[in-house]
């Protein structure tokens, strides 16, 4: 259960987020998916709860929650809509990176807007020719006096075209991870443009576009951290981002499981409600068990990240791999339990399946998660 083992504050946080998700996300989720509508007004509303800056310090308008709290928030949100929850997870990754790696001037400049969601954030690492091998990225940032000039293309960028603040990883030095720096690019910067909204299988309620940087000239105070720190900053951001996406898979799958139980209770076949079939009960039991195991791992990884455990990146990778695989298979089982109705859009199950499928790919594909886990096992040098 989503609420098992939580303290009083966490219970209140989960209940509030669930209320919000049920009132403001769930009723519209299918329509947003079909109309490819990005509900910016609802994101503004979400900021009233503190969803714009979940991990950002209170001094800058954030909620100052831990990762252990955050995974509860994103799971609860995703019960209403995994896509909007997933976008907010990315937005929060961006806000956290500025809070964690920016200076006070940068925090004051971007965090209040991100926390109120008056400005939205996007994370730009992947390129058309550099996905899993992110350290091979080719976008360049050439130093020119007090400025940098950024040129390159970023691929699969969530929120692109609507977002106001883009954290862009670009090469300032030699090949490899140490030659990369992180920059904040703003939507009104000259030379910034966007590709068309990609047609995709799921996650339709938020735009995915290329971000095209054609000689975007930014002052040096747009750089986050030191020159050459960009890859490290990007990876630190992803540790938390992976937990967010893992939590979104839990919430989507929980919703699919709950709907399956309700459907099997109502639906009659061969003279009895389907729920009385032990074969189907066992299927539900397995779904619930696997989801509980995934949830336990996500919470363990979140606690590790909170106490800055050296194993945290490996646990985050394990949690992301396991929870997104489990979430997809539970949603797929739910579709099967719904029979032909599960395949119809009207029941909302096929949307969850489509949405959760991409969680196995983004924020580092699950193959990369295995690579990170394996490196933790056998040593990074091999």
């Amino acid at each position, binding site marked *: 259960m989503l609420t098992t083992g939580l303290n*009083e504050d966490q219970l*209140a946080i989960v209940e*509030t987020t669930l209320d919000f998700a049920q009132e403001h996300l769930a009723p519209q989720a299918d329509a947003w998916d079909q109309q490819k509508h990005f509900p910016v007004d609802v994101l503004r509303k979400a900021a*009233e*709860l*503190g969803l714009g800056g*979940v991990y950002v310090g209170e001094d800058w308008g954030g909620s100052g*929650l831990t990762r252990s709290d955050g995974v509860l*928030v994103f799971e609860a949100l995703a019960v209403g809509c995994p896509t909007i929850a997933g976008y907010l997870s990315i937005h929060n990754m961006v806000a956290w990176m500025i809070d964690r790696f920016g200076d006070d001037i940068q925090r004051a400049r971007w965090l209040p807007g991100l926390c109120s969601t008056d400005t939205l954030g996007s994370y730009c690492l992947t390129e058309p020719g550099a996905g899993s091998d992110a350290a091979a990225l080719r976008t360049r940032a050439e130093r020119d006096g007090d400025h940098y000039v950024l040129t390159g293309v970023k691929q699969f960028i969530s929120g692109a075209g609507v977002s106001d603040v883009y954290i862009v990883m670009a090469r300032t030095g030699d090949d490899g991870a140490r030659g990369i720096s992180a920059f904040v690019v703003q939507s009104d910067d000259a030379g910034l443009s966007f590709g068309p909204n990609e047609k995709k299988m799921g996650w339709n309620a938020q735009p995915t576009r290329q971000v095209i940087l054609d000689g975007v000239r930014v002052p040096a105070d747009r750089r986050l951290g030191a020159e050459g720190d960009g890859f490290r900053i990007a990876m630190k951001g992803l540790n938390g981002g992976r937990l967010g996406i893992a939590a979104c898979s839990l919430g989507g799958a929980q919703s699919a499981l709950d709907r399956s139980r309700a459907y099997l209770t109502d639906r009659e076949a061969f003279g009895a409600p389907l729920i009385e079939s032990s074969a189907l009960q066992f299927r539900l039991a397995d779904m619930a068990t696997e989801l509980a195991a995934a949830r336990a791992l996500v919470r363990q990884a979140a606690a590790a990240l909170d106490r800055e455990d050296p194993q945290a990146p490996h646990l985050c990778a394990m949690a992301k791999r396991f929870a997104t695989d489990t979430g997809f298979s539970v949603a797929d089982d739910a579709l099967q339990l719904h029979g032909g109705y599960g395949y119809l859009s009207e029941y909302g199950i096929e949307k969850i399946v489509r949405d959760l499928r991409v969680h196995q790919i983004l924020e580092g594909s699950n193959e990369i998660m295995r690579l990170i886990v394996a490196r933790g096992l056998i040593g990074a040098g091999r």
Partner: protein
Amino acid sequence: MKIVVCVKYVPDATGDRKFADDLTVDRDDVDGLLSELDEYAVEQALRIAEEADETEVTALTVGPEDAKDALRKALSMGADKAIHVEDDGLHGTDVIGTSLVLAKAIAKAGYDLVISGMASTDGAMGVVPALLAERLGVPQATLLSEVGVEGGLVTGRRDGDAASERLEARLPAVVSVTDQSGEARYPSFKGIMAAKKKPVETWDLSDLDIEAGSVGLEHAWTAVDSAADRPARTAGTVVTDEGEGGRQLAAFLAGQKFI
């Protein structure tokens, strides 16, 4: 200015609500929450406080230990402090007794304005605000869909079927607000975390100088003789439109005395 918001902890309407052997609501088997209609009262108190200087909002409830949850919700929405009147002698108290306890607690806490919801979502009596005003000896302006405070006056609009009335009353006063008064805010995460640091006072009947004989099930002015489960829903009447559908619908409604 001191605002006291009266809030009630009620059984979750989506839960399986039952009566106990003494025909009071069985609170053990159903989750409770802050009455949805009282959220509007908390919201209006917070909005008034945001507009005015030096305003303190106190959430007040009378109820069993679990009723703390309702106070916590009000505190996480933004109320400054809370008072919980809890006493075994209160079990089964009706609106007459409840209004006595509330009035004593409000007087003890000190107030310029008392705000309550239009009714509870469980008992649905809707008379507590009027009873409170009578007991406190102050003006009442009930069922407001708009409310504000200025220059020592509370003003508001009461919407009726045929007309809207503007009301004003000199403070101190008691008002109740409807579900049309403005959407209640969600508690923010920050508010939730801050709530546990806010003061919650717990008073019993002796703190309020109320004799046990004036409240409780035995001394309620009304008594529940019996309670029965709501009958199961039966299949409705289906009117198939074969050219006469409109007439048949109208005839059905007229037969049920709806029109």
